[in-house]
């Protein structure tokens, strides 16, 4: 039996006066890798912002591990076990890799033993962290940075990891490395929710797919099913034939 880690029910949210999410329903089960795809403006990033607490939804609920986290502050959500790897530069360029990852444990900094343990775990999962420990984060390549960001996110042992366009700007080799790490995270019981521009890649990597359009979920299902679904192509490119 699969348990729902995250459930969003009829969420309406947006910026200023407008609504981006227009009644969104979403359920993510434990241990899955779910990939959200959809054309620009569909509201994919907004979903993340609502989950992580950056935006308060106008209506609807967000439940995480049974607890209602609708509209909670980002630090509360972080402590509850949701970590985020954002699209853009999130590292501290003048700090070493080691220090960057260490800062991921800021919330648990007082527990030295735990901190050490987590650091060891992250080094295990992301060997790069140990290999390049003393290098300045600013000198790393895009792919390497992404790996360090993921490592940093793992310091709080999150149950849910949100990844915003993990393959963006990466060369194929780095994409493969990131993909393999994502699979490892899921294998160890974590749930991964990602947004991907690259539909094919996303569905190949994920176990489940969610297709959004205009602020709502249009399709959900197994990743394979989504990948082969001709409707998806239509959604991106519009009707194949005009009348």
């Amino acid at each position, binding site marked *: 039996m699969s348990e729902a880690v995250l459930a969003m029910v009829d969420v309406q949210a947006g910026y200023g006066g407008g609504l981006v999410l227009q009644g969104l329903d979403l359920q993510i089960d434990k241990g899955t890798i779910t990939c959200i795809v959809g054309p620009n403006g569909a509201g994919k990033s907004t979903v993340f912002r609502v989950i992580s607490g950056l935006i308060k939804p106008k209506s609807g609920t967000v439940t995480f591990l049974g607890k209602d986290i609708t509209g909670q502050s980002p630090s509360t959500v972080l*402590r509850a076990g949701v970590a985020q790897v954002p699209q853009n530069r*999130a*590292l*501290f*360029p*003048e*700090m070493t890799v080691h220090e960057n990852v260490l800062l*991921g444990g800021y*919330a648990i900094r007082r527990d030295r033993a735990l901190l050490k343990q987590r650091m060891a775990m992250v080094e295990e999962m992301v060997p790069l962290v140990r290999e390049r420990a003393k290098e300045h984060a600013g000198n790393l390549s895009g792919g390497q940075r992404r790996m360090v960001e993921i490592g940093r996110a793992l310091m709080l042992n999150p149950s849910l990891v949100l990844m915003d366009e993990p393959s963006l700007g990466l060369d194929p080799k780095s994409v493969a490395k990131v993909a393999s790490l994502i699979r490892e995270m899921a294998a160890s019981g974590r749930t991964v929710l990602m947004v991907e521009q690259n539909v094919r890649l996303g569905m190949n990597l994920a176990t489940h797919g969610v297709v959004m359009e205009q602020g709502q979920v249009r399709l959900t299902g197994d990743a394979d099913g989504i990948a082969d679904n001709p409707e998806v192509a239509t959604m991106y490119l519009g009707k194949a034939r005009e009348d």
Partner: protein
Amino acid sequence: MEIVQILAFGILMGGVYALLSSGVTLIFGVLDVVNVAQGSFLVFSALLTWQIWDLTGIEPLLLIPVMGALMAFFGWIIYRGLVKRVVPQGPGMTVLLMFGVAIAMEGILNIAFGNKFKSVTPPYFTQSLQIGELVLPYPQLISGVMAAIVLVGLFFYLKLSWAGRALRASAQNKDGAALVGISSIKASSLAFAIGAMTAGVGGVLLIIMYPIYPATQYDWIAKLLGIIVLGGMGSIPGAVIASMILGISEAFAQAYIPQWSAAIFFGVILVVLLFRPEGLLGEKTREDVTT
């Protein structure tokens, strides 16, 4: 040996400048605010030191930790009470606010201490240390050394403590810091407190060396601003280097062409800004005006 003498003097003063400017730099790095009231914090600490010394005759160096702590608290209050509210309005308004603080403080200090020079004269005030042909006046020597000690302490604090890490993280990437749970308000408060602390320590060091009165703050606004701009608005190493440049060039200018020392410093600053608007070690910000 005269050159070595002047150089030594310049380095000692440079050390004191470095301590003071690092406080302003830290505040700028974390908050994007230029604390033009640092001069008034300095004078506040100096005059308070004088008052205590005048009443109790206590060795002024013992007041370093006291003043440091007091000013840190003061800085924290100023941030929480005033600065926090104004920062969203932009850099121009915030600098204006700090001017308001500086002027108000000068007024208070004038009322409390009058408009006269105050000087602290501990027993070693007129004595010097002699190393071979080098004559180093004790006040300058002690100030330079103490400043270096506090600076080194600050350096290690920023490097090794969690609070220090949080500050550096906030300065390097505000969004990233928020992502790992660092509260930007807490970081800003701490930065302001530390910045004011450097003024607290600096005030004690200063009044041992020179007589101070409330309007002295303007000389300091000028110097600190110059150092920050030259060294790069957010870079502590840059500020230290610029401080050394100021200290040494001031010492030489004082010896040979006293009246032009300050003008040269500002001239250099403007020329540097012409070619490197971000200062010597500062970071380039956005790409273009018309983006």
